[in-house]
């Protein structure tokens, strides 16, 4: 049976929604530039690409229609490349990778671009026209629970104090700062041109190198009057895009594409919406089982940091040495452009396997509404 591998990864810089440099760029233009960057970087023969699978959490407005097909045209890919837009909220672009891997293994294509994008500036979280089902809301309001509230629920359930969350955030910023200083993001970032071609944006904008526990302790509570979660212990609203090239191992060999990592197993799982942040636990356990691995086998872990309390709650269940966790920083520091994050952390995990010379990597994230998604990669 064919095996799917990661053969390339890149992303745009991640910048804060509304205030950041990417705010002025349409999300379709943004992801098109990243896709072009991936094609250039991997030198993949575009005629061979089966599909552009594009994740987006709020696919409306400028992210609307079948965004993936629009991006095929914007990126000047051949008409033969088809496009599908998929939505699993924050897990969308990791799901794109899973779909590609599944297709490759059932011999339904050789090469796929798996991407994700979110302009949280231009399309608000929740979309412009959130119209929940009134009957469901009456019967089961948790189906529509806000993300911040779920973070508070986990903080309460796992007794994670505010200070502990802030310590976690400070570490995330510190790791990202060091990675940025060492130039670890240079390889993965595609400089983005503004529409006027006046500026090239090539630096992440969310990282706060100078943040401290003391600074964070001053921030007001963001979601609950007597809670513990603040903007400082939440991932920021972010604009960004990421893309991963997924192909069969055989195709990579034949076409001399880089073989970054093999996709060993994948999983999704559901959990109660009000503690959606715990989602990675169930998904990771399934993925580990399917890979025949234990958590101590994982040398690299990319656990998305939607909230510090959420990540800390997950870590209560999965024993992951700190050195292996989010080595170049997580979403609290880098930002979390919803639809793009899955591609970022999977691509990142693949590149870290190579850089850190480890055998197995996990990329996992929680998903609003009560879900988790996980991917286990194996060094080649």
């Amino acid at each position: 049976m064919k095996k799917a591998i990661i053969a390339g990864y890149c992303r745009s810089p991640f910048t804060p929604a509304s205030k950041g440099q990417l705010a002025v760029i349409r999300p379709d233009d943004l992801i098109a530039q990243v896709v072009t960057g991936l094609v250039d970087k991997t030198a993949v023969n575009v005629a061979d690409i089966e599909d552009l699978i594009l994740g987006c959490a709020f696919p409306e407005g400028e992210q609307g229609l079948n965004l993936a097909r629009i991006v095929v045209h914007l990126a000047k890919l051949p008409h033969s490349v088809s496009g599908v837009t998929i939505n699993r909220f924050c897990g969308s672009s990791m799901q794109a990778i899973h779909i590609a891997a599944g297709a490759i293994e059932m011999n339904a294509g050789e090469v796929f671009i798996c991407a994700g994008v979110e302009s949280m500036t231009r399309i608000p979280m929740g979309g412009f026209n959130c119209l929940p089902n009134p009957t469901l809301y009456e019967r089961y309001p948790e189906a529509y629970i806000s993300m911040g509230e779920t973070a508070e629920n986990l903080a309460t359930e796992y007794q994670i104090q505010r200070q502990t969350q802030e310590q976690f955030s400070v570490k995330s910023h510190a790791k990202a700062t060091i990675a940025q200083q060492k130039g670890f993001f240079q390889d993965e970032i595609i400089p983005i041109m503004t529409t006027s071609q006046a500026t090239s944006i090539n630096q992440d904008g969310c990282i706060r190198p100078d943040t401290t526990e003391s600074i964070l302790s001053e921030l007001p509570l963001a979601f609950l009057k007597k809670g513990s979660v603040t903007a400082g212990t939440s991932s920021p609203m972010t604009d960004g895009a990421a893309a991963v090239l997924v192909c069969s191992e055989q195709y990579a060999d034949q076409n001399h594409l880089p073989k970054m990592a093999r996709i060993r197993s994948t999983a999704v799982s559901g959990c109660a919406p009000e503690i959606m942040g715990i989602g990675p636990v169930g998904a990771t356990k399934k993925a580990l089982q399917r890979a025949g691995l234990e958590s101590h086998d994982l040398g690299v872990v990319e656990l998305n940091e939607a909230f510090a309390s959420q990540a800390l709650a997950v870590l209560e269940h999965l024993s992951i040495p700190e050195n292996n966790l989010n080595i170049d920083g997580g979403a609290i520091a880098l930002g979390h452009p919803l639809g793009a994050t899955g591609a970022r952390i999977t691509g990142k995990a693949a590149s870290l396997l190579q850089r850190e010379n480890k055998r197995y990597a996990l990329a996992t994230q929680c998903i609003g509404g009560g879900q988790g998604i996980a991917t286990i990669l194996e060094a080649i």
Partner: protein
Amino acid sequence: MAISKVVVIGAGVMGARIAAHISNAGISVYLLDVVLKNNRNRNQVAETAIKQLTLVQPAAFMRPANARLITPGNIEDHLDKVAEVDWVIEAVVEDPVIKKNLYQKLNLLCASDTVISSNTSTLPLSVLIDGLPETFTRRFFISHFFNPPRYMPLLEVVLGSMTESEIVKPVLKFADYQLGKGLVYCKDTPGFIANRIGIYWLQCGITHAMAMGLTIEQADAALQPFGIPKTGIFALLDLVGLDLMPVIMVSMKKALPEADAFQQMSHIPELVNKMIAKGYTGRKGKGGFYRLNTAGGKRIKESIDLKTGDYHTSIKSLDADDSEITCVSLQALLLDDDVIGDYRWQVLSKTLCYCAEIFSDIANNITDIDKAMILGYHWQWGPFELLDELHVDWFVERLESEGRAVPELLKQKLALYDRSKRTSSYLISSGQYKAMITPPGILSLSDAKQQNSAVLENSSASLWDVGDGVVCLEFHSKMNALDFDTLSLIRQSIDKIRQEFVALVIYNEADNFSVGANLKLLTTAINRQSWHEIEVMITEGQETFGALKYAPFPVVGAPSGLALGGGCEVLLHCDAIEAHSELYMGLVEVGVGLIPGWGGCKEYLYRCLHKTRKTMGPMPAIIKGFNTVAMAEVSRSAIEAQERLFLSSTDGITPNRQRLLNNAKVKALALIEGYLQSEPPVFSLPGLSAKVTLGIALRGFQLVGKASHYDVVIGNQLAKVFTGDDCDITGIVTEKQVLDLEMKGFMALVKQGETQSRLEHMLSVGKPLRN
């Protein structure tokens, strides 16, 4: 020539705020000041001033974005910018040598017809132009703004004999029409008009209060019935800055003749010198005569003891009686046989005599003095109008009985104004009267009221003929609160206009257009549990405003000041609005536990649905409208009211309050030709799903402590109106159905104890209760 760019030199309090106000007219302005020594940022002074402008209260900018119209700079690197502009305003330190040096440079750099003016408050023009060439003096004048320039409508203008009126005319027109200033032409004398009199009055107030042993609260309260604003004497001095007093006094003493009565009133009390030395310079310092003690986390207003200099908690004096002030009551206040009565008489008689003595030295006529004090010191009456209120003969006889000198102007005991004829006239030195000529573009409701009797009237509102077939509906209840009488007069007016007139303007000359519905009436009905009566009140309002909207003639609202709640709702039903630039408009009903019930939700929702720029599905417009009403947002200017969609883009904004009625009338007349009666709107609303979305958002606000439990209850009622409640997104909601939703929400809330607590709190404290 239109004014398109301005330079202000001097980024002190006045210079910076003048720059801000010029930006309020949509005009770009450079703000230049000196370069600080040892500072790498050469624009530091101007940049800091602009930053301060964004924080200052009351707000200097009519909308925050105006700050971007001010470019900071310095006089070493950027003085050449004066070559690009039409008007240069100098607002540097009050030193003639520094000013004249600057003028010489400006004269070389400016284009030949660029107007240059000084904002000096003390230096005469003759001193400033002494030795300067004709190329300068021909385009130079004094433009004296009052602080804060956005809010104080007075602009004192001193033209020199060399000033060429054709050159400065565009600037004066700009100041009048676009900056909204009331121009008063002054003679070139120290302190010009308003400060010459104002400072004399303030000095009188302090000196006599100290001599008579009054507290500052007593002194300030004593003068209020005479139309002096609530700031009184002492709070005004705190606002101006105590440290300025000695500076002004030295300058005035030096400049005025020895025989001038000012000289006797120019002594700075020892207490004031001590306060200045200790940094108690007023609001900008640690405090002044009044201060806010914030120790212990509470804000306690304290007053200084004029004898000991110690502070004590302020004792709230009883506000001036609400009852109508009459000549008899004013005289009686001056005759009070106690120290307060004596204080009033001493301060007022001396001030009014001083005005009468010097009027011809400082002004062209008494009307300019009255105008200056009304616009510059916010007096209800100018000094000569006040003399008429008191009756000149009574005033003079009392002076005579005390053996005091009677000013020449008053000796014949003639009234200062003759308002018996169609055109009013004023007294001149010869003892004759001269007709007052209203300049073109100004229409005064007071004049119209003097010339005609009311077309219709009752205790809360009146209808006046303002010419050319246009009538003006005037509210005149307390705070212009709307009640059954108001609604009834609107109904009667509609019938009347249909028969006899062509258009209606809704306007009044009070400080505030209307604070909303009369809450006392509502609480009385609540106390009686007369729910039916309240339903009638709502129906009556809805139907009356509906009748206004569907009247077969144009209706133009012309608000100024507060237009809240019902006052906002009546405007939302007009065909068009001509607003004074100082308009504070909003649907604030949630503050008293209610939602707008007189069609305000319906009209505002319609505006949001049709005028929200991003028409991306049904929700953005609904969220915008809902947020504005749920948070009781009030515009901080007319331009902001336009941004919040209370005003439409075709509505007009008039910066000069005195031009408002005329502009509204012109707007109404322009609408007559081809006037089409409004068609009832239909709404397409998303219904229950949208209500859930708003409910989720409300819950989020409650969780984080930004909304109380009862805020959420009110919000949910409001959400029903803004979403169409249980309608389906494919259906149509009629105007009547939205009005019914308003009624339903209003009635549900009005029966709640929390709403009643909010209402009672508002009536007793004047501020909203968050319960």
